[in-house]
């Protein structure tokens, strides 16, 4: 196969999936920012699932199911996409080569444990990472990964390995790419639709472990951790919440900053004061989440006694829950 290199612009992003989507659409001459993709794709969420354990701690999540942001945002925008999954590993690489030869950059779902260019501190078995392949030279593929500062290269064997990583949410060679993009898009109604979807997810679902109710439930549980599990385990449980909130791919504060940036942009596009106000409130709320994680991290130092009380941390969570409830109740009623 001949060498291929597309004129793909590598841009870092806060969240891998929204960033990849934004960069792919950008290649197809559809200028859309990362927060806009995240907002239209209704990516923001909260869920606390104590009956599911990941790395021996309850699962906390600050966003929707992986893959949904790409699916929802492209469908909403009227972009035609193709998504493939594979059983046969070789077939997956042949398909990748074929699409590259057609001149289309491809989004890939990969596991991060064996990703050679990834920062070592993030190399855990996380199978929902996304990146773009936009070229090939001999045996090496050119990769744009929104976490990493510069474009990277990865060998055929390594790429095969990360595309077929095993474990929970295994990617099974999943590849996706836009193939045709509409010339004109009326974005205003899509923004409103995205906002309403997120508002419903956050304040409309009558189930106590998700949305604003989920944040309050987590706060209630957190007060009991020390008594129930002792210092060490409480600290680990708290750490797990914070890792989900602040670690790679959230852009900080569990996607609250990125969502606020979306509201800001939405307020300008729609010339809507209510949304612009909500953007500011979301920013203040995101800063509270950040306080929560900075203060909470003091309880997560090795062999240290907890420095901050879990009650105080839970109070910050309740404060965030109140703020988000107010914001999303207001947003669920917006009219153009």
């Amino acid at each position, binding site marked *: 196969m001949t060498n291929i290199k597309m004129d793909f612009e590598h841009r*870092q*992003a*806060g969240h891998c999936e929204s960033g990849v989507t934004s960069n792919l659409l950008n290649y197809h001459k559809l200028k859309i920012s990362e927060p806009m993709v995240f907002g239209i794709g209704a990516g923001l969420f909260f869920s606390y699932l104590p009956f599911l354990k990941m*790395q021996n701690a309850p699962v906390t999540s600050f966003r929707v199911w992986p893959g949904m942001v790409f699916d929802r945002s492209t469908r909403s925008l009227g972009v035609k996409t193709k998504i493939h999954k594979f059983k046969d590993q070789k077939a997956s690489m042949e398909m990748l080569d074929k699409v590259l030869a057609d001149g289309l950059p491809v989004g890939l779902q990969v596991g991060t*444990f064996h990703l050679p260019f990834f*920062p*070592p*501190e*993030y190399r*855990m*078995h996380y199978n929902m990472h996304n990146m773009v392949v936009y070229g090939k030279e001999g045996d090496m593929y050119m990769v744009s990964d*929104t*976490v*990493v*500062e510069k474009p990277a290269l990865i060998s055929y064997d390594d790429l095969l390995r990360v595309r077929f990583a*095993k*474990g929970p949410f*295994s990617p099974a060679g999943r590849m996706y790419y836009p193939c045709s993009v509409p010339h004109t898009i009326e974005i205003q109604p899509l923004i409103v639709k995205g906002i309403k979807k997120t508002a419903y997810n956050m304040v409309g679902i009558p189930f106590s472990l998700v949305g604003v109710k989920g944040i309050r439930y987590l706060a209630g549980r957190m007060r009991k951790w020390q008594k129930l599990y002792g210092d060490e385990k409480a*600290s*680990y449980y708290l*750490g*797990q919440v*914070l*890792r989900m909130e*602040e*670690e*790679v791919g959230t*852009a*900080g504060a569990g996607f609250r*900053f*990125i969502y*606020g*940036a979306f509201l*800001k942009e939405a307020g300008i596009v729609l010339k809507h004061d209510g949304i612009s106000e909500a*953007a*500011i409130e979301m*920013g*203040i709320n*995101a*800063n509270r989440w*950040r*306080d929560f*994680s*900075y*203060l*909470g*991290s*003091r309880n*997560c*130092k*090795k062999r240290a006694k907890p420095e901050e*009380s879990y*009650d*105080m941390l839970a*109070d*910050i969570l*309740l*404060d965030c829950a109140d703020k988000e409830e107010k914001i999303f109740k207001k947003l669920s009623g917006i009219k153009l």
Partner: protein
Amino acid sequence: MKQPDPQNKQAEPGPDQELIYTNNRELFYHFDPEKKEYEQRVGYQHSANQVIIKQSWDVVEERLNEVKEQVIRGELSPIAWYMEKNLMEVPMLAEYTGFWKRTVRKHLTPKGFHKLDGKSLNKYATIFNVSTHQLQTPEF
């Protein structure tokens, strides 16, 4: 007991704290409440967040040390150590090898490990990215 008012408790940024990880700069979003503006900045992960990343690696390291002792005492096979080193658990290793979970569990015992044939040893070695010699005599 009176709780401190969460409204007043704020986290000060701690730039003076030492960073643990400086391999890669990432993009983060921020909100300036005075200017009411969002901005994107490229930088290292905040020191407070690096603490929580390190916490999970500390837990990994502690577990790895425990398993190492068990391997040295002859209670577990080297596969158990390599599994831990690769942050895997039995179900994941079973998926990678194609063995049943209970077969993998058998290989974690020294007795089961010694019965392994060359082909199976090779399979494990490839997954852990080591030679079969290294697999049999791990360098802790």
